[in-house]
């Protein structure tokens, strides 16, 4: 029975993929894209699935500078496609900013201060990236292909805290109370405006009824469209006395926080941390630390990496690329590495200081991107008091204190013994620079001091900590590249070009700066275009 006949006689079940190829064939790709997005495919990620580099590179060689996720993605895919790949890496480990600190790990920052992490075995902190959005499909796909196990990263914990020194006498509030009371009272206001006919022009008479139902449902309003202390709002925000079993077990609702107090407190500002596309649930983290990704890549391409190689010069002519580097294990005569092509993933904070044979437009782009300040501090405590005393299992508390965030471990819940939390995550703003300027021990001390405002258990339970200030990291000289609309317009296309035999990759060559997804997508795009050129010539 032919397909056509079948379709004429009765509607056959058509798979989504069949339907899409049919739409594509009939109406062209724009219509297909529209159909795909409305069917819930395709719009969420620029990742197109595992890369296919078809055609013979005929033994072409590629020198990759930097063994972070961008460099190792390029190395993995190009070596599979038949290229002769070698890599140079400044650090004595692979991964770059994909990095995890565990007990016994030592590192020295610019200025000479060294820290040795003293965490108990099994505990760790991710000083760089720490969470993966569900729509970062390239990172997720490489995790899958390379066998990196994932677990949920809790971005929104309703029972974590929102804190400001400027309201509620400095007392931290539960996220669920602020979120529910804010939403409930906005719903009440809208319901009033609707009832008073103030929305008549905006909402049809028919929709007004539905809107009222929706506001009641969404805002936990009572039968009179009021948001107040009762068991309806308590179903959302929790109770003053929670329902129990047996005698005297009845629930008692809590008193909502006044809308005026929420507005003045500015705590509503933090709610977007649970709404933004990059922070929507679910998010993920690798089991055991973010560097499981870097280590998994290194299992594939580690044999191609020359470690502790400090690049000092990048030259090219029409025959090839020549990179000068110092072997930091045995400094002496500068060494040379040569190849037909070069993929350079060195952060622009460093690359902008090197003599690089590229055209004026590429050089201008390399020089156009400032690097952000960021500090992360890991703190080890004797016990999980945030779980034991406060029922905060994972997630993040936000504060306007300089530490900004407290990130609770999203693993090992309910276990006895020590645990490590993220005691500060500063990103840009004055405090990030001020913390960078402090010695490491003082950064840790400040994190403990400020954190005690949210959790008074801090001083009694604190044991040790590590502080990573990204401007002080010798391999990065900053957290990530900051593009503005103006620099994007002027330089972004230039920085993406293949300049002779050199192409750049990394988070700084993406529209997803400071995210691992940006690094991987930029590498995939760079090698796709490079491969096209190699196969053509």
């Amino acid at each position, binding site marked *: 029975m032919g397909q056509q006949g079948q379709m004429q006689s009765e509607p056959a079940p058509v798979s989504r993929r069949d339907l899409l190829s049919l739409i594509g064939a009939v109406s062209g790709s724009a219509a297909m894209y529209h159909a795909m997005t409305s069917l819930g495919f395709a719009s969420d990620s620029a990742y197109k699935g595992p890369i296919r580099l078809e055609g013979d590179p005929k033994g072409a060689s590629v020198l990759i500078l930097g063994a972070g996720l961008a460099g190792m993605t390029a190395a993995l895919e190009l070596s599979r496609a038949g290229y002769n790949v070698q890599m140079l890496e400044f650090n004595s480990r692979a991964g770059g900013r994909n990095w995890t600190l565990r007990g016994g790990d030592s590192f020295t920052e610019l200025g000479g201060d060294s*820290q040795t992490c*003293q965490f108990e075995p099994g505990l760790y902190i991710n000083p760089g990236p720490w969470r993966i959005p569900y729509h970062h499909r390239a990172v997720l796909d490489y995790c899958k292909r390379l066998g990196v196990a994932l677990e949920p990263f809790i971005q929104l914990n309703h029972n974590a805290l929102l804190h400001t020194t400027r309201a509620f006498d400095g007392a931290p509030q539960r996220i669920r109370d602020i979120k529910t009371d804010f939403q409930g009272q906005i719903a009440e206001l809208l319901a009033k405006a609707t009832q008073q006919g103030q929305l008549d022009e905006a909402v049809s008479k028919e929709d007004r009824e539905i809107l009222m139902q929706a506001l009641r449902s969404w805002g936990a309003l009572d039968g009179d469209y009021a948001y107040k202390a009762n068991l309806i709002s308590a179903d959302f925000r929790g109770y003053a006395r929670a329902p129990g079993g047996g005698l005297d077990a009845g629930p008692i609702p809590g008193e909502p926080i006044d809308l005026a107090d929420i507005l003045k407190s500015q705590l509503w500002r933090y709610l977007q941390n649970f709404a933004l596309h990059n922070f929507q649930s679910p998010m993920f983290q690798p089991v055991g630390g973010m560097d499981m990704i870097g280590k998994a890549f290194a299992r594939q391409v580690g044999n191609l990496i020359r470690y502790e190689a400090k690049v000092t010069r990048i030259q090219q002519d029409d025959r090839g690329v020549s990179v000068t580097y110092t072997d930091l294990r045995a400094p002496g005569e500068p060494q040379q590495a040569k190849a037909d092509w070069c993929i350079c993933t060195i952060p622009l*904070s460093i690359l902008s200081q090197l003599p690089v044979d590229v055209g004026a437009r590429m050089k201008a782009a390399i020089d156009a991107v400032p690097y952000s300040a960021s500090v992360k501090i890991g703190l080890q405590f004797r016990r999980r008091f945030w779980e034991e005393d406060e029922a905060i299992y994972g997630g993040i508390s936000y504060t306007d204190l300089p530490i900004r965030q407290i990130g609770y471990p999203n693993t090992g819940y309910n276990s006895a013994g020590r645990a490590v939390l993220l005691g500060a995550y500063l990103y840009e703003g004055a405090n990030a620079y001020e913390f*960078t300027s402090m010695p490491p021990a003082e950064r840790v001390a400040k994190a403990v001091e400020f954190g005690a405002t949210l959790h008074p258990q801090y001083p009694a339970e604190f044991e040790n900590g590590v502080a990573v200030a990204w401007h002080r990291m*010798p391999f990065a000289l900053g957290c990530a590249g900051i593009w503005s609309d103006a620099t994007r317009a002027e330089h972004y296309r230039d920085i993406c070009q293949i300049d002779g035999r050199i192409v750049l990759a990394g988070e700084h060559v993406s529209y997803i700066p400071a995210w691992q997804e940006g690094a991987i997508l930029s590498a995939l795009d760079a090698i796709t275009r490079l491969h096209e050129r190699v196969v053509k010539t």
Partner: protein
Amino acid sequence: MQLNANFRRCVAVSALLLLLSLKAFAQNGREPGLSAGFRFAENSGEDLFASVCQGCHMSDGRGASGAGAYPSLAADRNLEASGYPVEVVVNGRRAMPPFGAMMSDDQVAAVVNYLRTHFDNAYQDSVTAEDVKLVRR
């Protein structure tokens, strides 16, 4: 890495050492203040240097070197023409972030004047807030 051994100081951050180092810190100098918002709250050139510039250029102003380097500002001929440091602080240079949005004209003038008269720099002419205003883009 070519890090100056004099500055190499192993910081084993245990609770005990933490207390000791804090005590030592309190004895050795002022605690740099912490700002309450996006902009810097420090006003004197000395405080601004210790809270901002020091992050990369180090407490002695001599910079540091890793895969790349932070240039030394000590005995720095680039500071001779006062317009240059004003321009760099306000608008940034290469990977150095622009601080124009985080500092007032007075603050930029204060930190530039501090730099140009410390760390083996002894330039006598000073920069004013008016000079700073001119380079804001």
